[in-house]
């Protein structure tokens, strides 16, 4: 369990993280979302004792990170970027970390196997690709078999194979009862992985809800129907309280309450359906709804270059 209690980080008058109060529960993958510069990484660094807090507290299993004895036995973290000396081998890098927390030497080959780097343990870190570096970071995080994991953009630089693997890894770690907090800017990735979402913009909390609740509230459901009797069936649906627009092809696009009744209505009124598809609720839509008005760095369309005056 990770507890944030009024966590605040100010750089002068600007608050990068503003009075954030959230509990991250064990047994779930919690996605940590927000636009660039929203304060996700700063929050994670404060939890890990790397950045000083301006106000508030961050505790892991009831203690501040700096107060944990052998912290790697409780917390594993994957931060962006290189984590070791480029001249050191992967094995030596992990062995040093294991020694620092009194972990058994045998954990080093074990985690190297787990992340798929078993064959390159003797290669120096400077020769590693971005994806291999990312895997090594995950190996270091798993070294102490921790109950709490924090991952900052863990899929950066991974190939599709690696992305699939890390999704499975996070799911299985959470299923074992661990607390898994993962930040990402890949919404589709998050939608497939996270059980719970914490969303911040400009350092402030805007959502702390289960994925299903958030999607139900923020992403309108919609159905697409293809039928030879489109105008007649559209009238049926409208009488049932749904709103229908006719597309070009000519398909019917239906929104509103009672979409699950469509099949029954077609059967009841004797309409033939060639297609009935429900759009998957979209995290992207929910996310933009929550954060769209509050983007720190909003983009504008590219205009023609201005003449110097």
């Amino acid at each position, binding site marked *: 369990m990770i507890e944030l209690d009024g966590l605040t980080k100010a750089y002068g008058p600007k608050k990068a993280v503003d009075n954030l109060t959230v509990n991250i529960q064990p047994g779930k993958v919690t996605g940590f979302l927000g636009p660039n510069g929203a304060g996700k990484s700063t929050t994670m660094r404060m939890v890990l*004792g790397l950045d000083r807090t301006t106000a508030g507290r961050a505790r892991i299993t009831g203690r501040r990170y700096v107060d944990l004895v052998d912290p790697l036995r409780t917390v594993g*973290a994957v931060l962006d970027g290189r984590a070791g000396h480029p001249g050191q081998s992967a094995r030596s890098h992990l062995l040093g970390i294991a020694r*620092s927390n009194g972990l058994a030497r045998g954990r080093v080959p074990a985690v190297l196997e787990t992340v798929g780097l078993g064959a390159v343990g003797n290669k120096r870190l400077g020769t590693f690709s971005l994806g291999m570096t990312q895997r090594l970071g995950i190996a270091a995080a798993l070294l102490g078999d921790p109950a709490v994991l924090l991952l900052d953009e863990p899929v950066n630089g991974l190939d599709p194979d690696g992305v699939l693997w890390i999704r499975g890894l996070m799911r299985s770690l959470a299923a074992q009862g661990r607390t898994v907090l993962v930040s990402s800017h890949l919404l589709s990735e998050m939608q497939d992985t996270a059980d719970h979402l914490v969303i911040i913009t400009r350092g402030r909390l805007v959502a702390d809800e289960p994925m299903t609740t958030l999607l139900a509230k923020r992403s309108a459901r919609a159905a697409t129907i293809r039928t030879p009797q489109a105008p007649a069936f559209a009238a049926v649906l409208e009488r049932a309280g749904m709103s229908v627009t006719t597309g070009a092809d000519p398909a019917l696009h239906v929104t509103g309450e009672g979409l699950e009744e469509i099949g029954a209505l077609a059967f009841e009124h004797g309409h033939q359906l060639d297609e009935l598809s429900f759009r998957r609720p979209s995290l992207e839509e929910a996310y933009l709804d929550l954060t769209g008005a509050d983007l720190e760095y909003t983009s504008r369309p590219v205009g023609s270059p201005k003449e110097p005056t």
Partner: protein
Amino acid sequence: MSSTHTTTTPNRLLGPPSERGRAHRWGSAIAFEWTKLTGVRSTLWLVVTGTLLTLGGTLLIGASARASGENGFETAAPAPLFAVQTISFTQVAVLLVAVFAFTAEYSSGSIRTTLLSVPGRGRVLIAKSVVLAAMSVVIGSALVLLGTLTAAAAAAEYGTFTGPQLGHAVLGTAASLALTSVFVLGIAAALRSTAGTILTMFVVLYALSSVLPIFGQDWLTDLVKYLPGTAAGVLVTNAADPYGWATALAVLAGWAGAGLGVGYLALRYRDI
């Protein structure tokens, strides 16, 4: 690349939190720093290069003393003094190891791995100091011993020495290397950049002693006495000028302590 990664899923149960006492943390932090320092090749290359230059230089100085002596010049001196004259090569090598012990962590980002593993920043600094000081003592003593033997062989009767002379040279060199490298380590922790640290190191250790007297102010000239280079010189050569070895040890320890203090304050209050 993907074909080379065969991955498995960890199926262990939740590990127990640490049952080790807090006292173990110091030993673990030192073992960590030792692994990092010895795990990179640059440390080995620096030490080997410094050793070869020192021993080569000692051989030349010894041979030169003998040649001059045979031609009637007054150049005889105890062999340990020949040995310590070339210790600068080793000193520079050891000091560069001290610089990189911190600056390489900042430039590679591994400082975050270090602080995640050992969150006590003072403990990280002390652990690095212990490892560096131990390395300095071993290398310094070994080189003075080897250098003395080399110089004695090359200088023959113009390099005769006594046991206490050798003992002073060994202990003095070991102490001076250890304390100077701890001073540099503290500066590196505070400044973070390799270039900035090396520049500061050369100014304080080497340049100031020749620059300060230029101004002709007595107090500036007096200050030179208390620079780390002067104190290190007293320790290494067992000279009695400008003060004895005890004062020299105190002066150099003061610099090491000041360096560590500055490094600690910077580490303590900095976001990594």
